[in-house]
């Protein structure tokens, strides 16, 4: 196998509070190559923090430690803020869970894309504008000329997310960290957006860390899945094997989904077993 893009061993993220500290991520190890890796798991399990830690964009007060945390040959733990800025600008892009917060609220959408584009490509403004419009079209925005002139608060939730995706693809990064990139999209648009991401990953050999709570989507779209619970990876398995998951937590997640083919009175709510907190974890169907 090629050398992975990302290699993380025993990552821990701790918050120091006034009264007590708490460990949000507790010893997570994984690699990401030129592949699509899905991260699923319940709210608060540490998915976003894990993703953000790769860019050292964790909130103030979060303390990151690890045996190692590498992007290619760069040691992320010891990288300076200057080096990190370079990585964020050129090599690793993050599509955030909260699109409206990552767009500048005071600037028209089109101008933001043009600006981002010109940061990475030497072009005249007119050409950059054409590119920006083409990009909006590529992420399936109907009526790109109109949307170009809108402010972030004037677009729908799903449109905001697609605009973010368009912006993140501009630097042609090595790795994309997508945090719930499609959660607000309907199926038709979601499929189109995934096709765009998929094309990029496959054609350009980009790595993708795809954080999502949509198990069906991850099972069909990703190559590998990491299942997080309470700050740990409970299971690391090929996406096509998700239905054969061994960990009872993964199994209970699958059972909790509402289904179109069967109507039920009540959905099965996963029971959380305290013994999972420090219990065994599985890799590729085997106890790890």
């Amino acid at each position, binding site marked *: 196998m090629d050398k992975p893009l990302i290699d993380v061993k025993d990552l821990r993220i701790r918050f120091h509070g006034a009264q007590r500290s708490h460990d949000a991520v507790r010893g997570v190890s994984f690699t990401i190559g030129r592949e699509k890796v899905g991260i699923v798991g319940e709210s608060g399990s540490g998915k976003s923090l894990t993703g953000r830690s790769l860019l050292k964009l964790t*909130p103030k007060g979060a303390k990151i430690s690890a045996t190692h945390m590498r992007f290619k040959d760069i040691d992320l733990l010891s990288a300076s803020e200057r080096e990190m800025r370079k990585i964020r600008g050129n090599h690793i892009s993050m599509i955030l869970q909260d699109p409206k917060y990552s767009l500048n609220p005071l600037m028209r959408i089109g101008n933001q894309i043009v600006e981002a584009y010109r940061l990475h490509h030497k072009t005249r403004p007119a050409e950059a504008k054409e590119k920006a419009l083409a990009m909006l079209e590529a992420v399936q925005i109907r009526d790109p000329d109109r949307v170009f002139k809108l402010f972030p608060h004037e677009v729908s*939730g799903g449109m905001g997310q*697609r605009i973010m995706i368009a912006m993140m693809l501009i630097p042609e990064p090595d790795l994309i960290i997508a945090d719930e990139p499609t959660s607000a999209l*309907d199926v038709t648009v979601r499929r189109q957006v995934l096709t765009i991401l998929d094309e990029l990953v496959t054609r350009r050999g980009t790595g993708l860390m795809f954080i999502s709570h949509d198990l*069906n989507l991850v099972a069909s779209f990703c190559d590998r899945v990491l299942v997080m619970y309470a700050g740990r990876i409970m299971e690391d398995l090929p996406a096509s094997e998700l239905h054969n998951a061994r960990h009872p937590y993964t199994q209970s997640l699958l059972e909790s989904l509402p289904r179109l083919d069967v109507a039920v009175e009540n959905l099965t709510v996963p029971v959380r077993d305290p013994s999972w907190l420090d219990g065994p974890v599985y890799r590729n169907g085997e106890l790890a």
Partner: protein
Amino acid sequence: MKPTRPLIEAVGLSISFGPKHARTRVVDDVSFRINEGEAYGLIGESGCGKSTILRALSGLNGDYDGALTLADKELPKTRSKDFFRRVQMVFQDPYGSLHPRKIVEKVLAEPLAIHGIDRASERITETLDAVGLGPSFRYRYPHELSGGQRQRVAIARALITDPEILLLDEPTSALDVSVQAEILNLLRRLRIERNLTYLMVSHDLAVIAHICERAGMMYKGKIIEELTSHQIRQSQAGQDYTREFLQATIEAVARRDEAVA
């Protein structure tokens, strides 16, 4: 069976945005009725106008044509204080909807103070419990919560004034599936217990079919047809567009069958 009467009605609702010379009509002559105790869904592709309808009904945007009525009375463009107690909204975006510098307790105490509702402390405990957040969350700031935890706070805030109507805009799309199951069970239970009426937007048809009796299929600002949850499940549609829209989801479900088979 209890008598049904429309609790909410939209008649010829149209909403436009943009400057005078370049106005775009994003909601176009939409009419629907929702009976008391009923759950009605809005489905349709991103940008078709679902949230815009909810915002107009909720009183956030008074710039619309046509009429919106509540219990047979046309709503004034500027809503009364009582309206805001009776009709509560849960937004798609759990980030923008909570004030960054208010702890959870304050978020929940405010609507109680505004509407002069008693037993504040107890209600806060009960409501946090109802949405599956323990008492330790009471003193947290939004930035100390994950996305799903914030959405549960948003739902708690909507429930705390004991409303009759909930307008739900993608209430579970930011939640993981285990919490989604909890919240959907909660929404179903509360509707029966408190005889609530729902208007709900979701891109997940399984969620719509689970919660709603009926749904309006939207396309470019219009409701092109109404479907029962049964019709959604069976993919029975009158219009080609609806059939295509439903079909796209059926494929996703086929993948799910592979996944759980």
